[in-house]
């Protein structure tokens, strides 16, 4: 599987590159081949099975939006590639997002979602329920994201703000996005495997590690209940 990190120079504020490491390691430790590549600003978009978008500050986020609009990412997705986006990466995939002040900036419009500025920054631990299971992590953003009717949320909020305190992110076919930022797949090994399984078209062998202990501890800590 080829996993491409999109513009890590611009989108990588919170260790977001960790998601690529996690996915590649979970494949390799099961004997499945994995390759991670980085797409720099100005590079042609190479063929990949999955494109990863991280978080970024306002200036770099605007530049990333311009570069994405000029890129072939929509064609790659139409051809069946997956996208996993966090934080600013989520906002970039929508039709527009908020920048300094009340101004808005055009996004890639891969999905019908609009991000406006919230009244306060949302910073803290967050947990959302996806397909009946918890996803735990941390959010740090100033956005409120509205999904157009018919666009599915990625999950429902258990702890935190995410899109609007009710729903988190969106899921449109193979395009997944969440406000839980940084290496969210590291804290949620089941989600990493679910993402890989959806791209491979088959389930994966179990892979026990200390990440399972971390997931259980974080679920208990954030929600007072088990995973």
């Amino acid at each position, binding site marked *: 599987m080829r996993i491409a990190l999109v513009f890590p120079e*611009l989108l990588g504020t919170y260790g977001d590159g960790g998601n690529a490491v996690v996915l590649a390691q979970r494949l390799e430790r099961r004997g499945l081949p994995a390759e991670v590549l980085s797409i*720099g600003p100005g590079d042609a978009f190479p063929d990949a099975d999955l494109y990863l978008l991280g978080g970024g*500050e306002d200036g770099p986020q605007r*530049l990333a939006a311009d570069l994405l609009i000029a890129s072939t990412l929509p064609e790659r997705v139409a051809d069946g590639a997956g996208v996993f986006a966090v934080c600013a990466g989520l906002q970039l995939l929508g039709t527009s997002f908020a920048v300094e002040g009340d101004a808005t900036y055009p996004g890639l419009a891969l999905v019908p979602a609009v991000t406006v500025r919230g009244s306060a920054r949302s910073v803290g631990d967050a947990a959302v329920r996806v397909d009946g299971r918890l996803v735990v992590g*941390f959010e740090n953003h100033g956005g409120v994201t509205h999904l157009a009717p018919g666009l599915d949320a990625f999950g429902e909020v258990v702890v935190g703000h995410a899109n609007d305190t009710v729903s988190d992110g969106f899921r449109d076919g193979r395009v997944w996005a969440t406000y839980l*930022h940084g290496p969210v797949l*590291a804290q949620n090994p089941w989600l990493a495997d679910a993402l890989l399984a959806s791209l491979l078209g088959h389930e994966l062998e179990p892979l026990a590690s*200390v990440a399972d202990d*971390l997931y259980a501890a974080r679920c208990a800590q954030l929600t007072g209940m088990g995973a």
Partner: protein
Amino acid sequence: MALATTAVRCVNWVSRRSGRGAGTVVGGNAGLGIDPHLLAHLARSRTVALVSGTNGKTTTTAMIACGWGRDVATNTTGANMPAGHVAALVGSRSPVAVLECDERWLPDVISETAPAVVVLLNLSRDQLDRAAEVRQLAQRWRDWLSGGDFVVVANARDPLVVFAASASPRVHWCAPPTSWTLDARSCPVCTRPLDLGADAWSCTCGFEEPQSQSVLTEGGARIDGRPVTLDLAIPGAVNRGNALMALAALSVLGVDPALAASRLATLREIEGRYAKAVVAGQAVRLLLAKNPAGFAAQLADQAEHRGPLWIAINDGLADGRDPSWLYDVDFEQLRGRPVWCWGTRRLDLATRLWYAGVEATVVENIAPRHDGIIDLIANYTAFQELRRGGERR
């Protein structure tokens, strides 16, 4: 002012006597409550140097204090906001002061203390859950440095620092070694990717690394053209860089760099950093790393070592509540070395190490496990906890 300074002394005396604190911040706050401009009053008629940046503040401040070669008012306990500055100045009659200053407070402290020199070490991601994003911070610095009547001693290798400092008419540029570039990959002026060349960085928009007046050399440094020998007792390339910045600042203040450099050789530990201690029966050398840039520097120094390594990661308020940054640290270079994980986020650390292919053991409590002295790298509150819990050797 007399009432306010008396309040600082009294409250701090009570704080120390009652064992409730180091006795700096509470008293400073009491004084500032009575006189909001107490810091300005206390700084007036003193020559003040301020030291700010993400990493190396405490070390560089201690180096300036040591290299000055006289009694210096300084905040040694890491209390680096105005309350701590007030306490430091109330506690000393010295006409010269060097104050470590939190990055976010720097503009306020500049306007209160009217410094002679402001040292800007570096800017990188740290505690993003409560601090402004790092580019916003650089912009705030820039706004405040444009009108100042002081010399800025600034790190020319750090594009964000250069962006901030180049607004000042009087800059003394230094070139300390840097092992961290992740926050400098996008140009602070135009956001395009920077060309991080081996010798100097630049951008197609014309923003580029300035020529440095002070640089490190084979056996020492050249401070504004004058060669000096550096013979530091504390280890690491990062500390040679801190010494370079300290010597440049002292040179601006009129202190002979060669004499100042010879004084630095006497510094063996700084606020517990590099100190040898016994923690719960285990002999350790305490090392501090609070963020990806700090870890990059510490792990670079670890390259020669082979034995077991301890790492402690907490998520206290002063650490930042979100340990996502562990994935910005190149832990892969520790492959082949056994690592013990401690601290409130030990499972996050162990998971990071598992994904890095590093053998990791999770421990809830520290116990003696190894012969000899082992290195223990800890982030801020873990470091303070270990320092308090450890007995000095």
